[in-house]
């Protein structure tokens, strides 16, 4: 589903965020991406979503080489992903319902009734069914994070990218969200989760990719360090 071939990313500032990163994540696989702060986790996820472009090497997602992605195809590439952002990226002037509905509105495939049904189903999964009419600023940090998660899964993407999805959640909620991701994996969704939460990662039996100073330490399953 995802293949990195000697991918390097150097930001315009000159900072090399990733160097020669190569790995393969199979369709339907679930993996954690870990590493110290600034190791390049967010950068790696952004390369997959084509928010950033690699400086060298090739990124292949869903059998498509992103180096050859035309501008007009970028939106369709992004629609096939569900992305959970480290900083949530919610629209403050729209209700929870409208935020979660956004991917469906953008896709333009469903009528109002079907959209409403799917949005409520997604909100139910993250335990926010009662908060449809709230605005993001009226929610706690963890609740906002869960709105972001609902928005990422509402359109049933084939690939789920999560950047610190449990950063603001208590252990119980984190566990619930992880169970939700595993449920997605069971129905064939590929899931890649960037996280520092070593305890959580250790408790779950999934493959771990560890970044260190922009280098991938290990591409195979292993117990996280420390």
């Amino acid at each position: 589903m995802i293949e990195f071939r000697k991918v390097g990313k150097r930001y315009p500032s000159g900072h090399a965020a990733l160097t020669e990163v190569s790995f393969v994540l199979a369709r339907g696989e679930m993996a954690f991406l870990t590493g110290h702060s600034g190791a390049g986790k967010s950068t790696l996820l952004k390369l997959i979503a084509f928010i950033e472009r690699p400086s060298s090497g090739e990124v292949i997602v869903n059998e498509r080489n992103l180096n050859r992605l035309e501008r007009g195809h970028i939106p369709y590439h992004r629609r096939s992903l569900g992305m959970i952002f480290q900083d949530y990226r919610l629209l403050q002037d729209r209700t929870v319902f409208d935020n979660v509905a956004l991917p469906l509105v953008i896709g333009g495939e469903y009528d109002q009734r079907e959209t409403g049904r799917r949005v409520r189903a997604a909100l139910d999964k993250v335990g926010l069914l009662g908060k449809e009419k709230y605005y993001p600023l009226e929610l706690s940090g963890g609740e906002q994070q869960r709105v972001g998660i609902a928005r990422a899964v509402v359109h049933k993407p084939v690939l789920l990218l999560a950047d610190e999805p449990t950063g603001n959640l208590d252990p119980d909620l984190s566990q619930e969200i992880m169970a939700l991701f595993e449920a997605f994996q069971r129905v064939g969704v590929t899931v890649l989760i960037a996280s520092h939460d070593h305890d959580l990662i250790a408790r779950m039996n999934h493959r771990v990719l560890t970044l260190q100073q922009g280098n991938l330490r290990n591409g195979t399953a292993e117990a996280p360090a420390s």
Partner: protein
Amino acid sequence: MKRRGEHGQDSKTARAAPRKAGPRQRGLENYVTHHLRALFASLGQLARAPLATLMTAAVIGIALALPAGFHALLASVQAVAAGWEGDMAQISLFLKPSIKDDQAAGLAKRLRGMREVADVRFISPQQALAEFEQSSGLRDALAYLNVNPLPAVLVVRPGEKYSTPAAARTLLRRLESMTEVDSAQLDLAWLERLHAIIGLAARGVWLLAMVLAVGVLLVVGNTIRLGIQNRRDEIIVTKLLGATDGFIRRPFVYGGMWYGLFGGLIALVVVNGLLLGLSGPTQQLAALYHSGFRLELLGGLASLIVLGVGAALGWLGAWLAVSRHLRDVEPV
């Protein structure tokens, strides 16, 4: 495992993979409802800042009102001028001395039957002489002439469509070649001058309209540019979620269209208000000159054109602005 060089194909499967492909009919329905929703959502957006909306619309309205107003004035002038043209394009046919009155009357009848001719007036030599005597005061001198030297004259007034200088000249040549006619005269100088002035004024209105149309594009473009800046975060998030340029452009372009439409409405109110305000005094002035000149309000078609042009310019201005600025707003 990886097949490459097929991303055109892949893009379709990737798009379709997560959902069931619904019937095409429903896709079209959804497409239309999405457009309608964007149309009214953009209206709601404008309604949320009524004063700013009104100001932008007013600027557009004034820009549209100027050429529309001049056009209305010109149309009124043209209507009056068309009335004058008939008089101005008179052709005088001097008949041969051998032609008797009844023959002349016959010719007049024939001419009246022509499509190009609106009216023919017959002036017999006796009438001509009487008129001449009166206007010249040479009655006594003329009394010494024992024959009337004046020919019979047919005064031909071309129909409305044949009163233009070119058409009148063609008619002149035809009439001149008739056997009964000795010579024919057409005084076109005034007509040509009038046409030149009206043509110049019409060209002026057009040029003014074009300059102001560019002005409208810039006003709308600038307003939309500010809108894009204000909604930068929203644009970035929708881009991250896979919005196409068309999707992002839609509310702005509809917004621009509404601005233009409201501007058009304001222009109609302004122009018709000015014309109404001027019509009383103009009529008084025209009456003093025994002229039937009156200011006409903008008609239904002209009003539709003002609204349509306003909406189209708003749409285009917004489209240009969004296309120009959308690429600057990329997610990071």
